[in-house]
């Protein structure tokens, strides 16, 4: 199970898309490299060479003693550890924007965690916090060209690494990545029982939100309104979003692509005619309302069944694309939208 990659962070994804002009995957993929050893830019062990290489999924760390100083590379990981009762051991986090999706009382608790870096998790800032464990919801939290620490750099600095990883292979059908990460993390951190309980809570939330059956609803995921004449960037089959949509009673219309991000031509999109559209918030600067309005007005989507029947729903990317305590909420939001009758 612990092979490929897990979900990325919005800024990095935005960079990937913008810079390459392509829909680049930064989430789960097909690289199935069990990393017996750390890898990074200039790994000296012959595992990797070259800057900016994100590590393959690092093995579960073996800790001689429970970690006392944990750094999380994103708010999603911080929230999971907090739910496990380990919040007091977190000495700092990066990417606190993941907290935004939480209800006020939980967000208030999470907001107390010191923010080392509002961005990706600068290597100096992370190492300066003197962590003995660094946790991320994605292998892409480690070793980016944008200055995040590589796994071997952290090891050199005396910190172990724990990252959520997804299995390689076909389309994601569920959210077992999340529950597995939660239970794995809990075992590593010596709170296995709390891990089982949290995983059960997440699973329960997912189960209660599941779709009612029937023909799956053709669903498109977008993070911004498609630009005229350009391919539409959406979530592919290996994205965690596909698992959530499947559980909600839908079928990702780009499920047949074996990448996290897929690019559909306007013609293909029209031919596949989505019956529902999930709009990811957290990538584009617009408000949710403006984003939805832009998506609905997009020439390529304006005539779709989803727009005509008013099945357009906004879901924060932080709870849909990566392991999160709130994955169940994402499923519930989508399921409610899919069940909506035409208005």
């Amino acid at each position, binding site marked *: 199970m612990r092979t490929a990659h897990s979900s990325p962070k919005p800024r990095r994804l935005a960079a990937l898309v913008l810079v390459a002009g392509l829909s680049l995957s930064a989430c789960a*993929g097909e690289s199935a490299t069990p990393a017996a050893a750390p890898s990074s830019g200039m790994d000296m062990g012959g595992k990797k060479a*070259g*800057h900016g290489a*994100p590590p393959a999924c690092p093995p579960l760390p073996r800790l001689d003693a429970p970690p006392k100083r944990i750094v999380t590379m994103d708010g999603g990981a911080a929230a999971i550890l907090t739910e496990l009762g380990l919040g007091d051991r977190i000495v700092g986090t990066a990417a606190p924007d993941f907290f935004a999706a939480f209800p006020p009382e939980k967000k208030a608790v999470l907001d107390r965690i010191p923010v080392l870096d509002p961005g990706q998790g*600068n290597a*100096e800032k992370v190492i300066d916090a003197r962590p003995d464990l660094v946790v991320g919801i994605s292998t*892409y939290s480690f070793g980016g060209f944008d200055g995040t620490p590589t796994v071997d750099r952290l090891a050199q600095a005396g910190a172990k690494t724990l990252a959520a990883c997804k299995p390689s292979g076909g389309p994601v059908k569920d959210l077992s990545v999340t529950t597995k990460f939660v239970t794995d993390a809990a075992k590593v951190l010596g709170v296995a029982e709390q891990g089982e309980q949290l995983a059960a809570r997440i699973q329960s939330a997912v189960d209660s939100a599941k779709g009612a059956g029937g023909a799956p609803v053709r669903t498109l995921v977008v993070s911004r309104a498609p630009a005229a004449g350009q391919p539409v960037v959406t979530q592919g089959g290996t994205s965690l979003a596909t698992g959530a949509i499947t559980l909600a009673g839908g079928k990702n219309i780009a499920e047949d692509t074996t990448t996290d991000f897929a690019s559909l031509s306007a013609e293909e999109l029209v031919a596949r005619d989505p019956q529902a559209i999930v709009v990811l918030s957290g990538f584009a600067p617009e408000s949710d309302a403006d984003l939805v309005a832009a998506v609905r007005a997009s020439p390529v989507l304006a005539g779709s069944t989803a727009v005509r029947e008013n099945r357009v729903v906004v879901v924060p990317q932080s709870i849909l694309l990566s392991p999160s305590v709130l994955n169940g909420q994402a499923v519930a939001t989508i399921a409610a939208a899919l069940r909506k009758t035409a208005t």
Partner: protein
Amino acid sequence: MSTVAPQRSPLLARVNIPLLAGVLLLLVLGSMVLAVGLGPVSVPPGEVAGILARHLFGGGGAPGRYDFIVWELRAPRVVEGAFVGAGLAVAGVLTQAMTRNPLGDPYVLGLSSGAAVGAVLVITTIGSAVLGLVTLPAAAFAGALLAATGVFLLARAGGRASPGRMVMAGIALAQLLSGVVSFLLLRTKNPEAQQQVLFWLLGSLAGAQWPLTLACMVLVGVLLVLSAAGAGRLNLLVLGDDGAAALGLHAARFRLLLLVVVTLLTGTVVAVSGSIGFVGLVVPNLSRLLVGADHRRSLPVSALLGALVLVWADTAARLVLAPTELPIGILTAAVGVPVFLFVLRRSSAGVVGLS
């Protein structure tokens, strides 16, 4: 009656070059020390000095809290930046002399694109770990070498490669190779590979580590010395093939030798830093504006200015939005362009001739 604008000499035309080079070298070294002391994490200057002294000159004591940040994260990055900057600038000087075109740089000849294709091809097919540490540098160099061979062969007419045809062939090949990179990027479904490819497109010093930094130092250092040794002959080359021949230089042969050196330089620096633009194009022109077109003067000044620009560009990249890092390409332009434009305005009506 026509009037002719008085020709002003380069700003530092009368300055003794060894003296100027010495001052610039001190400036580069000072900048490097300062740059090692600057970063998202504030480290007391005394602590930085102590860490550098301990590692450079030996000494007792256990590594302190900031030892890893200063010596393992910042120092190799700053050193690598200096040598990459010097290497790119000198590659630009040599390319401009080789093509007799002040707009020449390794990108124009397709060498950077060739290096990128070599690296990206390895990343997206067999993986970047096959030969261990040297895999990507070797692939990048092989790509640059193939591109150089392609340019040389395409530019040949009547048994020799003319400068104009080299530029045309280089630009065409660079476009083709850029397309190949995009195609490889689209084809791969491996997100890890895609992330690595992104590095080649953007350029970054963020992953610098000592072993490759030292390898880069040695290779670039040797090539800089070789280039400096041939600076006098560069002056002959820019006179044109006939002029060079009249003064005893076999231009075609020397151009081929230069192509090899530029390829080695480009392959080496691109291998460790990705594609960093601007330096190879602008720094040589800046040097000529400052000290004149004589390559014995402009080449060492270019190397040192290139080092200076990249050290500060990378430092700015780390600091401007700290702790978030900016792509270095933005900063090379931000640091270099104002200086270049200032010197251009102060110089003799923008004359940037090669001879």
